[in-house]
């Protein structure tokens, strides 16, 4: 009975179709030979050429990538250590600490954006990469924290205790025993955090500086002022890279599985 009826599968298909239809349009119009999206004027690669010569856009992309990597790294460190600590801590009030840490998921982004703006200007921090990094790290931490926490719950504590009993320092036990086990959670949390950071508009609007625009902010101004299909081209490329990476990942995963099996047989 655990199979879906045909209708259910058709339903899944329809929803997925509507998820991808707008994306397909964006991809399609990146090859359009006209600036306006109202009509199809023939196939052209001109927007891809223009994209690479559009310095401002490339710089914004660079900023976004850098910001994504840095904030994802920083939040991975903070989040992982935090989750490990929380798991061991036996305070009654640790629930509050945890609640506050994942608060960024619970309040509308716009509020985070505005409090950052107010607070950073109170501190006199110059708006730019640093303020963006802090803000992004705050909303990235919860993703990693929750992932790692979930992983730790299912983990066998005995292993780490054994390591400690055998004389390993807590730091050593962490790196040799705990970390390898939670790495998948850290990585998948980091990927999610990276995606969220790359995509954020609402918070970045408030904390970006005069010299640092991020890709989503550039797209946002363009959407208000009239999009040039260079943006379509850029997104098509980013999507292509993502798909390529996933395919490579699959292939690599397949290979390593085979390897493992091979070894087991030996």
């Amino acid at each position, binding site marked *: 009975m655990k199979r879906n009826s045909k209708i259910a599968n058709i339903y899944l298909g329809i929803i997925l179709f509507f998820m991808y239809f707008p994306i397909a349009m964006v991809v399609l119009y990146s090859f359009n030979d006209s600036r306006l999206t*109202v009509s199809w004027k023939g196939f052209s690669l001109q927007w891809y050429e223009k994209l690479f010569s559009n310095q401002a856009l490339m710089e914004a*992309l*660079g900023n976004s990538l850098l910001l*994504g990597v840095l904030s994802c790294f920083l939040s991975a460190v903070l989040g992982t250590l935090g989750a490990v600590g929380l798991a061991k801590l036996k305070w009654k009030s640790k629930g509050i600490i945890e609640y506050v840490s994942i608060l960024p998921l619970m309040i509308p982004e716009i509020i985070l954006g505005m409090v950052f703006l107010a607070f950073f200007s109170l501190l006199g921090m110059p708006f730019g990469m640093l303020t963006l990094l802090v803000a992004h790290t705050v909303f990235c931490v919860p993703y990693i924290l929750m992932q790692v926490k979930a992983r730790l719950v299912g983990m066998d504590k005995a292993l780490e205790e054994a390591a400690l009993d055998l004389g390993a320092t807590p730091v050593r036990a962490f790196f040799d025993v705990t970390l390898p086990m939670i790495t998948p959670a850290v990585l998948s949390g980091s990927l999610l955090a990276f995606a969220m950071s790359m995509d954020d508009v609402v918070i970045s609007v408030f904390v970006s500086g*005069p010299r640092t625009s991020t890709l989503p902010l550039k797209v946002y*101004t363009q959407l208000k*002022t009239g999009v040039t299909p260079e943006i379509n081209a850029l997104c098509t490329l980013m999507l292509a890279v993502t798909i390529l*990476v996933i395919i*490579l*990942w699959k292939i690599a995963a397949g290979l390593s599985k085979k390897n493992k099996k091979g070894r087991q047989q030996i």
Partner: protein
Amino acid sequence: MKKVVAGLLTGVLAASVVLSGCGGSSDEKKGELVLYTWEAMFPQEVLDNFEEETGIEIIYSNFDTNETMLEKLAQAEGGDYDVIIADDYILESVIQEGLAEKLDKEKLSNFENINPLYQGQFYDENDEYTVPYGAGIPLIVYDPEQVDIEIKGYNDLWDPSLKDSIAITANYRVINGIVNLSEGRSLNDENLDDIKATGEKLLELAPNIRMIQDDNTQNALLNGEASVAFLYTSQVTMALQENPDLKVVYPEEGLGFGIMNMFIPSDAPSKDAAYQFVNYILEPEVAAECFNNIGYYSTNQAADEFVNEDLVVPDSVTKGEIVKNIGEEADMQYNKNWTEFKAACD
């Protein structure tokens, strides 16, 4: 699998370092200039030529409204930006707050090119802080093929046949102002009862509004989203360039008028570069290129001979009324009118 993810992250990291490296390689150049204004206020060639001539790299940073600019500049306490271009009325606040640099005219050899018609204005009576960069009158533009009535003035915008078809700009003072004008009152009316009446009349316009947007509002007209638009001068020019069949209306009830100005913030990080830039833009040929490109009326006398004839001051221009700063209470009421109006639009 972990290794793949790790590799992926490393790859992204490497890519971002390379990309940001491209952006940062300009250290060898002779400094930077942060230019802060609306989108598309300069032809790219003018900026490129300036960079080439001086070796100064221009960082073009955008704001969407005057008020955003003031907020950001105030936060930066007059720093961060080197040259800002914004509208007349906001400059009064900028100057009052001490956020603008008193200009050293010695460094601006082209200062005398400015058309005196645009000087001595209320926001800077002695021309100490500002350099005009184009002037304009917001106008009504429509597509006669899609509109059944002949539009002569603001009052025609209330016509029921225009249901859901008007695109307007998003400056609350200007839109409140033209309602005032349509009733024969001043653009800057400060009488609270009058303003409330304006608010009520504005509400009646709501059903006809298709969209409200400050940037590139003309696109709504060009791609068929709207058949009538109330546009800034530059947008009027751009709309006509794309579609010469559009009709332009100088509203019979009276005109609004605005002057944009350049100024140097009081704590600009590279003042020398800022002076160089302002002076460069004041050169007649350069100014003309700018005006022709952005489609505002020329505020540079020496440039008039190079400017597209449509952009040399028509007599009607200076008869228009400029939006001025008004009392807090009146301003709050205008703001409230605007919020109510927007809420009523859908």
